């Protein structure tokens, strides 16, 4: 019994989900058509802020095929308000505006008809009389003296204003020779999956259950919908088997589910709402962070940073959903991979008349990383030092792990120096610099971008209790049940929805690894929410850690059961009883053995052969607590935010066309360490996809408004997503520093690439502009703005456009 054991984990096995998707046989929410299903269309407010004076539904109701027309008063009378993330009880929101609308695109009326086309026709016949109100779009204006108040009942546009002092910032600033301060802006972009949000609801009064099929990745969706609709807690059943067409944190859709659930109960018919792209972009309430950073760092002559002050103002939009908590999440990696001893972090959430946000990939860490990395570049520029060298001087060293940073979070493991060395060697850093200089000599604007950033993973939801004292959540669970049936088949369960992360492959691979059986033989089931074990869902780069961890533990429990049965039947002491590939045997006499079918037969059929009191059948479940989690934040805000910290280092060379302002990537290397990789193809794809999203955030994507507060980017023609032409060839260099906290040493990869790419691109563009004496202090850096900036700089320098710089 000494055959080599199969690896499975970390081998490039095919992703089992791909077969159905490649065949066009995914089952997305819009593919679900129930008999007698009705369709919703929405009437949205055309003003940035308006009092709703009157609504005339008569013409809409008169249209044949229309089933009902409801407004915010109808809905509010029957439901609880949607939950706030922050402690702002007077900021109340319902799926349809009640009395007043606070952003352009906010839903005011819902129309239900036999087809979506009829519903849209009817929505055009609804006459709403609006009284436009003063509005504010800019966060700083909103907190200034003249800003109109978005929620008069709340009394101010400040939803959160909290200072966190970690370490002795004043002392460290006083002792430092140098300091530099700067301001940055992270423009409002969005996760924007290609599938919009959709939900189908069907009410069964005989069983007392409201069934929901939703393209949702929301934690605890069923419980939330039930609570808001006033139904018993298990009166809502979410079907987790729906394939979700991309999520990236933003696929929540609680307001959609509440509205459609209410309508399905009202009408007694199944009801479907699938957002069109306009609804998705202006009224889907899933925009990403929009931040202003004011950063100051104190450092010595060698570029070692002692302390940092960071103020982050987030324009959260018209309502304070859970997304506002993203201002707190980066506290868990507020110093990045660096040894910065003290930090003052000032978080301000501001409400304005813009579309509300939803949580997004990295939970605010990508903007924060952009600010931290800019600080390093500024220090290097001030001292005339190499930017890589300054980073290396500030890094936490491999021997310092586990390492507790000033904000109280302990980083699990890392070897940042090794990852950077790997990239520098592969890229040949001196030659890259020479290449940049050569390009400059040819008259091009060329720059090198560098980013060394952390990607926290594991998702503890500690930012909830940190920013909202009303929350006491100190666990964020994930579960798995593994069963071997009476015929010897193995099935493992997933209790959340998936949006392309390959969770079925993850679980099958891990169960295969632990039981030493072919992962392809492991069946995967997704119980609905009523049948499910506890799950907090696929958010926070946590499923490899948490679902993978739960699957590993459940499989190990089953393996231990098989060994116990074998030891009893073979009458061998436990320490002499061995397991390999489904066979239990006496290690001293391997011919004495029980094969898989024997063990299954005994467990399922021969109770008399089982150890006394042994549980028959072969089933094991594990509900996993987040490693290193479980504690509330301290009074001064020190907290363990996530358990695991992945690292990525970007090194890239780009040129900016001096006449057009068009950036072009020449070379891009990434060193990536997310611990043990369960499936290399999945992690590579996620990282490259994250980089593509980072390219979008850095160069193209911004949700903007016109002077009247109407969205100027309300289609994919105005809001440009990166295409295949915009993403260069990127070489990823793998490094593995195992996490001591997880089943196989794995860490999170869900936001990889996205957390470093914007910072690196910004650094490269600014390096390219440096010879002109220009800098860009905001993202996205649109081609048009870069072109204008270059033209102005050259005009000042007296150079002719088109000539050599």
């Amino acid at each position: 019994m000494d055959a080599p054991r199969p690896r499975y984990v970390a081998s490039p096995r095919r992703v089992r989900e791909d077969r159905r998707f490649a065949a066009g046989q995914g089952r997305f929410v819009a593919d679900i058509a129930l008999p007698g299903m009705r369709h919703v269309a929405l009437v949205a407010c055309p003003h940035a802020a308006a009092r709703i004076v009157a609504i005339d539904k008569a013409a809409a109701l008169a249209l044949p095929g229309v089933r009902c027309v409801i407004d915010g008063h109808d809905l509010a009378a029957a439901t609880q308000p949607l939950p706030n993330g922050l402690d702002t009880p007077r900021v109340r929101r319902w799926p349809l505006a009640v009395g007043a609308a606070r952003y352009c695109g906010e839903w005011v009326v819902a129309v239900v008809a036999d087809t979506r086309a009829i519903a849209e026709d009817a929505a055009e016949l609804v006459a709403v009389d609006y009284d436009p109100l003063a509005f504010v779009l800019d966060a700083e204006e909103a907190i200034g003296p003249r800003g109109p108040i978005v929620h008069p009942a709340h009394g101010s546009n400040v939803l959160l204003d909290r200072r966190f002092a970690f370490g002795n910032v004043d002392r460290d600033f006083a002792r430092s020779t140098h300091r530099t301060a700067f301001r940055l802006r992270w423009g409002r972009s969005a996760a924007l999956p290609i599938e919009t949000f959709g939900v189908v609801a069907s009410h069964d009064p005989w069983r007392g259950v409201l069934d929901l099929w939703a393209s949702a990745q929301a934690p605890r969706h069923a419980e939330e919908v039930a609570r808001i609709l006033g139904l018993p807690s298990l009166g809502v059943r979410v079907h987790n088997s729906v394939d979700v067409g991309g999520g990236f944190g933003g696929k929540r859709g609680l307001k959609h589910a509440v509205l459609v659930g209410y309508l399905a109960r009202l009408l007694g018919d199944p009801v479907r709402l699938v957002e069109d792209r306009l609804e998705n972009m202006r009224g889907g309430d899933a925009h990403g962070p929009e931040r202003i950073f004011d950063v100051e760092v104190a450092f010595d002559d060698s570029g070692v940073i002692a302390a940092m002050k960071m103020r982050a103002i987030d324009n959260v939009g018209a309502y304070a959903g859970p997304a506002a908590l993203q201002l707190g999440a980066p506290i868990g990696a507020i110093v990045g991979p660096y040894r910065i001893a003290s930090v003052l972090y000032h978080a301000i959430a501001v409400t304005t008349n813009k579309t509300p946000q939803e949580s997004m990939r990295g939970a605010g860490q990508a903007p924060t990383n952009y600010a931290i990395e800019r600080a390093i570049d500024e220090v290097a520029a001030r001292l005339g030092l190499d930017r890589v060298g300054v980073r290396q001087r500030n890094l936490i060293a491999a021997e310092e792990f586990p390492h507790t940073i000033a904000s109280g979070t302990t980083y699990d493991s890392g070897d940042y120096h090794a990852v950077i060395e790997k990239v520098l060697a592969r890229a040949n850093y001196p030659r890259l610099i020479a290449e940049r200089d050569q390009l400059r000599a040819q008259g091009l604007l060329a720059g090198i971008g560098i980013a060394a950033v952390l990607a926290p993973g594991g998702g503890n939801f500690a930012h909830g209790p940190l920013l909202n004292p009303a929350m006491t959540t100190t666990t964020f669970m994930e579960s798995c049940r593994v069963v071997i049936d009476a015929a010897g088949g193995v099935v493992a369960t997933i209790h959340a929805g998936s949006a392309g992360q390959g969770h079925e492959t993850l679980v099958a691979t891990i169960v295969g690894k632990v039981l030493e059986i072919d992962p392809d033989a492991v069946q995967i089931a997704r119980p609905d929410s009523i049948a499910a074990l506890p799950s907090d869902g696929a958010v926070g780069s946590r499923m490899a850690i948490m679902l993978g961890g739960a699957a590993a533990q459940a499989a190990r429990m089953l393996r231990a059961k098989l060994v116990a049965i074998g030891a009893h039947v073979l009458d061998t002491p436990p320490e002499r009883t061995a397991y390999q590939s489904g066979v239990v045997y006496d290690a001293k006499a391997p011919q004495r053995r029980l094969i898989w079918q024997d063990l299954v037969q005994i467990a399922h059929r021969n109770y008399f052969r089982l150890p006394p009191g042994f549980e028959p059948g072969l089933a094991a479940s594990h509900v996993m607590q987040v490693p290193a989690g479980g504690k509330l934040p301290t009074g001064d805000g020190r907290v363990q935010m996530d358990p695991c910290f992945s690292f990525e280092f970007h090194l890239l060379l780009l040129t900016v066309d001096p006449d057009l302002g068009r950036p072009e990537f020449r070379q891009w290397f990434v060193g990536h360490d997310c611990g043990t990789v369960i499936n290399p193809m999945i992690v590579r794809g996620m990282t490259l996809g994250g980089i593509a999203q980072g390219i979008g955030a850095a160069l193209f994507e911004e949700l903007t408004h016109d002077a009247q507060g109407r969205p100027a980017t309300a289609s994919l023609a105005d809001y440009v997503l990166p295409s295949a032409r915009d993403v260069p060839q990127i070489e990823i260099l793998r490094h593995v520093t195992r996490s001591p906290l997880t089943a196989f040493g794995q860490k999170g990869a869900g936001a990889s690439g996205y957390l470093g790419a914007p910072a690196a691109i910004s650094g490269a563009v600014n390096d390219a502009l440096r010879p002109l004496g220009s800098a860009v202090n905001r993202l996205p850096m649109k081609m048009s703005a870069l072109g204008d900036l270059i033209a102005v700089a050259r005009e000042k320098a007296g150079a002719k456009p088109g000539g050599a710089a």
Partner: protein
Amino acid sequence: MRVELTINGAARALDVEPRMTLVDCLRDVLGLTGTHVGCEHGACGACTVLVDGVPARACLMFAVQAEGYAITTIEGLTHTRGALSPLQDAFCATHAMQCGFCTPAMILTAHALLAENPAPTRAQIVAAISGVICRCTGYAQIVEAIALAAERARAPAPGTR
């Protein structure tokens, strides 16, 4: 309005509203849900089908305009239940997808490219798929899948379909 369409080689006689788009007709009338709707204004390419072998956005075409053309959807590439075409298999070999929402459009677009150009360069592959937006993958593994399918078609490896 009466219309006769040829979908995946089969003639289908239907009654549709003149304003119904081809993609709505495929999905809602014919139940061919492998064609996806991403933006309904021709920007994302998720609804791409082949019209006489050429990629076209099914959201920018009315069903009644499709009469007289051979329409191919993703369902038309799978000839045997449970067996993928060589191109679909290549997409699985490189994990050229994540959520699977743009995948049918990508595969149909690649199918058309390879029918016309059996040995495309990387730049040609990139140009061909640049009209279909993928939000998950960053495209590299899609480009690799198409190159792999082309390579396999030239020299079929043993054991592949």
